[in-house]
């Protein structure tokens, strides 16, 4: 592995000082244009450049799902995607779920079912649940488990998350259609 003395030196975002490259994309419905470091991850871009701190970094290696965002309608681990790969992409982060200061049905159901405790996994968990309901408005428990398979939660034991998604699905079918 790396030869650094402190793990931090290896894993923290370090500016490569390479010539900047243009990046154009849509984040939560808004057009963004920036000149960026070609080696930075989408996660670092969202947090460092756009100051969207909702998306979390847990492991930085694809294991935990805390960094999950929706890119072109599909969930991705933003720690494993280069920002430049999101060229012309449509990105949805946790900040894009609520509308006009009102929490979405999915978020409301997470609160109602106590589907979070420390909340660190929650933004990623919500994005996985959002993408799941977008592709399948009436998921079975099995499908929910598959949909959140990449989101680790050390607090809830997952049952309350599953309950929240089930009940959000029901409400969305009733209220949004």
């Amino acid at each position, binding site marked *: *592995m*790396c*030869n*650094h003395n402190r793990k931090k030196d*290896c*894993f923290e*975002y*370090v500016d*490569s*000082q*390479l010539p900047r*490259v243009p990046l154009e994309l849509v984040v939560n419905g808004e057009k963004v244009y920036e000149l960026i470091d*070609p*080696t*930075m*991850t989408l996660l670092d871009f969202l947090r460092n450049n756009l100051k969207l701190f909702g998306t979390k970094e847990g492991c*930085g*290696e*694809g*294991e935990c*799902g805390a960094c*999950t965002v929706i890119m072109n309608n*599909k*969930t*991705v*681990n933003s*720690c*494993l*995607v*280069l920002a*430049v*790969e999101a*060229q012309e992409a449509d990105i949805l982060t946790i900040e894009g779920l609520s509308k006009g200061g009102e929490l979405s049905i999915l978020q409301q159901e997470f609160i109602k079912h106590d589907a979070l405790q420390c909340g660190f996994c929650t933004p990623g968990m919500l994005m*996985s649940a959002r993408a799941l309901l977008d592709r399948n408005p009436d998921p079975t428990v099995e499908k929910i488990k*598959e*949909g*959140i*398979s*990449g*989101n680790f939660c050390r607090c809830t034991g997952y049952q309350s998350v599953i309950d929240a998604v089930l009940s959000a699905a029901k409400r969305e079918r009733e209220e949004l259609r």
Partner: protein
Amino acid sequence: MLSKFAYYKPESLEEALSYLEKNPRTRILAGGTDIMLLLRRNVEICEHLLNIKGIPEANTMSYTPNEGLFIGAAITVNEICEDVGIRKRYPSLSGAADNLASYQIRNRATVVGNICNASPGADLAAPLLVYDAKVHIASTEGNRIVEINEFFAGVKKTVLKENEIVTGVFIPDVELGDNSVYLRKSRIKGHDLCNVGLALRLTPEKRLLMAIAAVSTTPLRLTELEKSVEGKEITPELADWIVEEIKKYMNPRPNSVRSSAEYRYHIAGVLIKRGLKKLLEKEAN
């Protein structure tokens, strides 16, 4: 990221190949679910990163009856999971795809990246081995096709040269009644590399084909073992015999992070029995 690389995403195969030819120390980026970890951990340092996801050939997946299925290098694991035709014709491939990592990883991870990464425990290797898949390779010098059984050269090593790109894998078509299963054992369900991954295939002529991953330096096709059971009926006694025989071909690391060698020997046996039983059940239906 500590690697300082120039990033390039060509729109054609020709551009990609000539970039690769001109720029030594280029690494290919597909889904990035393996290479991003290496770059981040500073295990791998590259000067150029070539994203192949813009190449039209890489984005094709096409099935031709009586010929087979071509899976381009940008096709993701989830695209395999969702394809009903693949599930019908090559069930062990779908089975292995279902079990690879997590949902979001599967949205990015490619089939071709899985074999190019050449992990001894690559989940998609065993199914591709029992189907005699062909690896399609291109370079500025021309194209070549390598049998999947000759593609792996060691732990994280393949026969690929620095100037070569895999454009896709081709899986020959199967006849009606062909069947296969994939079984794996990992520390936790899903989302962890397997301790043992096993693909078994039974052709309509009752030929049994076998491949196993994570028990040696590369995924293994068990050709010799297949020959020694040729023409024999699959009975519990034969299963017991295979369970003992298979150990001769295994060469697991004495103590890896995931499990001891003894455990892998044991699990291989359990999976063989389970897999043969499943194949026979499927046949009966």
